[in-house]
């Protein structure tokens, strides 16, 4: 394990930047997002969650796939084989890091997705422990420990130091290139930081979130529950919850007609939308209630059913903060399970 004085943190970023393209949470016009680090960029150390999650790096909102150029009677097909350079992302939280594993199950199971895979391989993920978890955080409900973030490198921060520990080969490789900036230290130095985080996490309001109903009740029974009728009422169908969610994974493949050519692209889709999984006869989920139900059934029932019991929520709390109507997965998980 290594450490560096916290006051030197921008020197650390500058060093990393000289070795590899670096992204970190920074404020852009009032909203925190992962931004490319240039000298002068201010790191938003206190922001736990960026508005958009870190999934964007591997599964961007729009991904061009191919372009069809039409001239006269011939069509030229240009496949997008654009490569991503290697990059590092600093400040990924434990929940977002866990979300990559959930996305991997979708995008890397055979046949694996080449666009996703390529970006995933190029990335070095540097996580950051959460000293002050928010009231909206419930990662612990999914067995995530905010004091032990994983990734290629893990970091912890005390008042005076940033601690750095490589976990993987990719992490070691980056560490070796910048090792001279650090001081060596032993693992014992971060025990109290970790303990403080654990104590804080135990006090979070959703620490006792019980998901047994979702584990033990049959799919059909939950699907048919009358509770859906009331829990979806305030929903606008805006899809904000799905777009900010690190584990929402649905996409659409569309054509963009520019007049002279057609561009085939992949884009995020949302089960909350009227044209989601639209087929010749329309959207199989005709009402907002059905669309709303799909989101939570997917996260809490269908996904675990197909993936050895793993829920596809990491408790990041983004949907709790972003929903304009204050609906969210906690309310749904509890209300649908409630006895009354």
């Amino acid at each position, binding site marked *: 394990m290594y450490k560096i004085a916290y006051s030197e943190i921008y020197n650390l970023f500058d060093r990393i930047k000289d070795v590899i393209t670096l992204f970190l949470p920074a404020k852009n016009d009032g909203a925190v997002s992962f931004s490319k680090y240039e000298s002068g960029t201010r790191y938003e150390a206190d922001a736990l969650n960026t508005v958009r999650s870190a999934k964007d790096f591997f599964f961007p909102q729009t991904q061009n796939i191919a372009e069809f150029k039409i001239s006269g009677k011939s069509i030229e097909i240009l496949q997008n084989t654009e490569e991503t350079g290697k990059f590092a992302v600093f400040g990924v939280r434990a929940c977002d890091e866990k979300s990559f594993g959930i996305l991997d199950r979708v995008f890397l199971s055979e046949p694996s997705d080449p666009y996703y895979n390529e970006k995933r391989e190029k990335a070095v993920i540097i996580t950051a422990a959460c000293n002050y978890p928010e009231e909206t955080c419930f990662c612990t409900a999914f067995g995530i420990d905010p004091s032990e973030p994983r990734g290629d490198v893990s970091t912890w921060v005390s008042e005076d130091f940033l601690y750095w520990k490589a976990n993987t080969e990719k992490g070691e490789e980056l560490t070796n290139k910048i090792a001279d900036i650090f001081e060596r230290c032993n693992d014992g130095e971060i025990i109290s930081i970790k303990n403080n985080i654990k104590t804080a996490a135990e006090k979070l309001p959703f620490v006792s979130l019980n998901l047994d109903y979702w584990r033990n009740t049959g799919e059909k029974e939950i699907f048919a529950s009358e509770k859906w009728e009331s829990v979806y009422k305030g929903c*606008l169908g805006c899809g904000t919850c799905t777009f900010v969610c690190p584990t929402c994974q649905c996409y659409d493949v569309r054509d963009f007609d520019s007049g002279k050519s057609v561009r085939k692209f992949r884009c995020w889709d949302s089960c909350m939308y009227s044209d989601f999984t639209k087929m010749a006869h329309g959207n199989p989920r005709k009402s907002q209630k059905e669309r709303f139900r799909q989101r939570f059934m997917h996260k809490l029932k269908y996904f675990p059913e197909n993936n050895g019991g793993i829920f596809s929520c990491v408790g990041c709390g983004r949907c*709790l903060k972003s929903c304009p109507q204050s609906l969210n997965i906690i309310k749904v998980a509890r209300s649908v399970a409630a006895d009354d």
Partner: protein
Amino acid sequence: MRIESDIILGKVKRLVSDGKADRVFAWKKGNFCYDTEPSLFTDNYVGFTYDDFCAANLCKFMINESKKDGKTLVLIKPCDSKGLALLEKEHRINRERIYALGVPCAGKIDMDKIRENGVKGVIGIEEEKENVSCNGDENLIIKTLYGDKIIPKKSVLYDKCLSCTDKEHVGCDEVFMPELSEDTYDGKKFEGVKKIENMPSDERFSFWRSQLSKCIRCNACRNVCPVCSCVKCIFDNDNSGIASKANSDDFEENLYHIIRAFHVCGRCVDCGECSRVCPEKIPLHLLNRKYIKDIKELYGYEKEPALLTFTKSDAEPSVIYERGEKNV
């Protein structure tokens, strides 16, 4: 004086038992003190609340509610009432099937502004009992997992509350205890627009490009807007060629906003919901308020729908062109 949720609920219950309505659309308490959600109450009032966090405008829900048999009682704040009136004027709701109960408003609290003060782990928010001044400048005690913090209430009200010029209800069936409303206007309604008007055009262009490029096209701004009530929005229509998913270039986002702004021009009731709901904090109200300001200056209308009226003295397009020139 404080607005008490129980007193409002008492009134609602009386109206329902008097047969004025069959169900109630209002707000429901959430997991925290601040996450109230719009909710339909049919047989009981479990969780009913009306407090400083009921910012969501309920009037648009009336499009669907008023298609049902019987009557829906809906709680309407002063700013919401303008949206309800517009929905009625545009024949988007069946007004007969709605009982609009106007409720007083002393401004609603924006959690994001509280968080901008570096507050984390909020577990409770209370109004400071001592030092309550009569001019509404009270303090909030923010209780968090990491200690308490005191923040002046005015500094964390929604922007839409700070630009709310009057607390008058329009078109409600009844207004309950309007004397409890408090003035929250900061006197700067058009300041933001003026600032942008005074920018050189390239600076203005890059301001909007940078703001609008953050847009994730979640459509929350459109879906919440009481004026965006088209049965099928052009951006949801695959055959239009501009369906919302075709954001393969971020210029598409910019176009979406410009088209939407034009469509609500002259109709926008300045309820501020679009800016409130935007997860990326894009100041959408500035687009709409520019029209509101222009319409006021050029045509003299502020509350009436300008596009429905024509007079011979109306400004000619050349006037508009010349005004634009100034800033080129």
